């Protein structure tokens, strides 16, 4: 089985996926630092780093590209970072693809767009992938590590381009782009009873003026996304190519694992390649290893070393509590591993009790990720 180091070497794109709060951003940054240290020109696309991590990576402005703070072994030009803008993703899409300033303004000022664009499906994820495609095609980097946006489910990232394509699907848009009072609508409503019923209800529901706005919005959008489908196909080609590897970032908690399990299956179904699973915040049990016998006597050992009885007891109790956490984590990770295909690397990073927000902090993860 290939180690994580081999996986980084064998690919040009590493996508770190996983549910929220498991340390994706930090893990992605740590992988990028390692690649830069091993002499590859690396870019990390990051989403919402802690301020100190952003500073460490040298990215200050959203959307900007920065070079990481130089550290001893990494020359500045080897490691770059880019911070993706989460909030204005749709505005960016519109500005980027609008055929003219007039169309752009018509969309951006549309009442329907202004109030609801934040809930249009998948824009952040799509923007992330589109930027990834551009960076990849420009070819300035040997490796691009991608931190994925926080999604309800890890899978959202993979499905976003398709959902966005569905949203702009002609079959749906067609219904909205017809000017509201046009003859074809009227005809359709007469011919098809269900459609007629649905639209009468829709009129009641939304009011005619709102429907006109919606209709205008989709009319403007339809021009904007001419040729959108080929772009989505290109995105999926890249995600499925040999150049791309997925790394699932998880923690050993029940609900994270049940989602991770689903993600692993789905990645395979989509013919994308999951190469590694990284568990963060893992506690290890000690009494399973060779120290078993001694660990059981920990209370006695500590009493000999610490004169104050209360302090010795408190140390022993704390030891036992973490032992319990370790046992649970160990059992869950073991059960999870059994479900994984043999060729997926599994790595465990312990629970660091200090924040990992400097390049040195990111390097502290390396012994656990890249041990021979």
């Amino acid at each position: 089985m290939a180690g994580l180091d081999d996986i980084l070497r064998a690919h040009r794109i590493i996508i770190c996926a996983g549910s929220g709060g498991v340390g994706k951003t930090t893990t992605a940054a740590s992988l990028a630092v390692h690649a830069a240290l091993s002499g590859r020109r690396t870019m990390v696309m990051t989403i919402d780093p802690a301020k100190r991590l952003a500073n460490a990576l040298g990215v200050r402005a959203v959307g900007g590209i920065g070079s990481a703070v130089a550290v001893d072994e990494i020359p500045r030009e080897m490691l770059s970072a880019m911070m993706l803008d989460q909030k204005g993703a749709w505005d960016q899409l519109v500005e980027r693809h609008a055929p003219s300033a007039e169309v752009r303004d018509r969309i951006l000022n549309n009442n329907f767009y202004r109030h609801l664009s934040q809930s249009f499906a998948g824009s952040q994820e799509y923007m992330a992938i589109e930027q990834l495609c551009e960076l990849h095609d420009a070819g300035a980097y040997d490796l691009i590590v991608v931190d994925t946006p926080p999604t309800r489910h890890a899978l959202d990232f993979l499905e976003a381009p398709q959902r966005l394509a569905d949203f702009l699907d002609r079959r749906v848009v067609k219904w909205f782009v017809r000017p509201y009072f046009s003859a074809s609508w009227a005809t359709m409503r007469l011919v098809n009873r269900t459609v007629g019923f649905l639209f009468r209800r829709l009129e009641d529901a939304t009011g005619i003026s709102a429907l006109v706005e919606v209709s205008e919005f989709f009319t403007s959008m339809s021009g904007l996304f001419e040729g959108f489908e080929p772009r989505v196909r290109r995105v999926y080609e890249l995600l499925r190519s040999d150049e791309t590897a997925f790394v699932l970032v998880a923690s050993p908690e029940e609900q994270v694992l049940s989602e991770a399990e689903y993600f692993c299956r789905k990645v395979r179904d989509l013919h994308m390649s999951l190469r590694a699973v990284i568990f963060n915040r893992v506690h290890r049990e000690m009494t399973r290893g060779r120290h078993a016998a001694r660990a059981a006597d920990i209370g006695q050992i500590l009493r000999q070393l610490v004169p104050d009885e209360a302090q010795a007891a408190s140390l022993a109790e704390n030891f036992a509590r973490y032992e319990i956490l370790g046992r649970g984590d160990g059992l869950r990770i073991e059960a999870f591993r059994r479900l994984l295909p043999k060729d997926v690397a599994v790595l465990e990073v312990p629970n660091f009790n200090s924040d990992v927000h400097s390049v040195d902090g990111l390097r502290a993860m390396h012994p656990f990720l890249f041990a021979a």
Partner: protein
Amino acid sequence: MKYPAATLFDRRLLIVAGKGGVGKTTIACALGVVAAQLGKRTLIAEVDGAGRAAYLLGVQPGAIGEARPVRPSLSVMSVEGSAALAEYLEIILPVKRVLHAVVSSRLYQYFVAAAPGLKELMTIGKIWYEAERIDESTGNRLWDVVIMDAPATGHSLQYLGMPRAAHDVFRSGLVGRESQRLLDLLCDPERTAVNLVTTAEEMPVNETVEMYQRVRDELRMPLGHLFVNRTHHTTFDAATLDRLERQLPKLRDPDVRAAAAEAVNRMREEMGWSSINRTYLERLADEVRLPRSEVPFIFTEEFGVEQVRVVAAEIGASLIPAARRTHKHGRS
């Protein structure tokens, strides 16, 4: 910024929001247990979840949109937008044949998949419906308290902001009117409170501060309580630990040495977390002006029904004056 603690449960809708992974579902379930102990007929509504709330309460999840009883005064439900829309249509379209024709049409399915904000709006609509629902056999409300286990921060804001967005876009029609009803409930401090859950660490606290400000300034919804989950509080003396660490090389037996070294490491970890927690608890005290409860970290092999009970006891003790906990309150 103070209210008598028990009044939290006098609201009809308690929303529980926070960053992904901080324990929202646990806190929502524990709040439900406390409310039920006070004699409130309580519904826990898990939004877009995988039945985790039901699991934490020790029952199998029911069908989406259906209340699954946990015990006489406590039920749990999974809520999801497209199921809520189908249920809503069933209420406003009494003719089954028409309903079926609509729901099974391809156009409807495209529409539901594509219409921005529709699922979010219907989710809030379903929560509203449960909060206002009347039990036909008694003429009373079906639930005294509905606890909404909301999705992670960014998505929560999207859900909670949808009624206002929909109202502003569709002023005149049915959607506009229905949205106004949702807004009336969501913005009424007598009936609703948005409660925040966080852990005392950098990223969750950043998100919590942002959420707090946006709920207050943008959504203009009433805020309730702040729950700081998984706090560590060791007061172990650092000098003692240093002394112990210096003694380690003297231990001859390698197994004994390894075990003692691990005891030191684990205490360092506990002290590290305690110190991080202290720092961010201070920041929360400065920047999130809400009544606050801390829930200590629970050391357990697996988090389940028993652990939720422990959290409920912690929350109950911090929220409810001792005098009120001794006897159950019926409906007033």
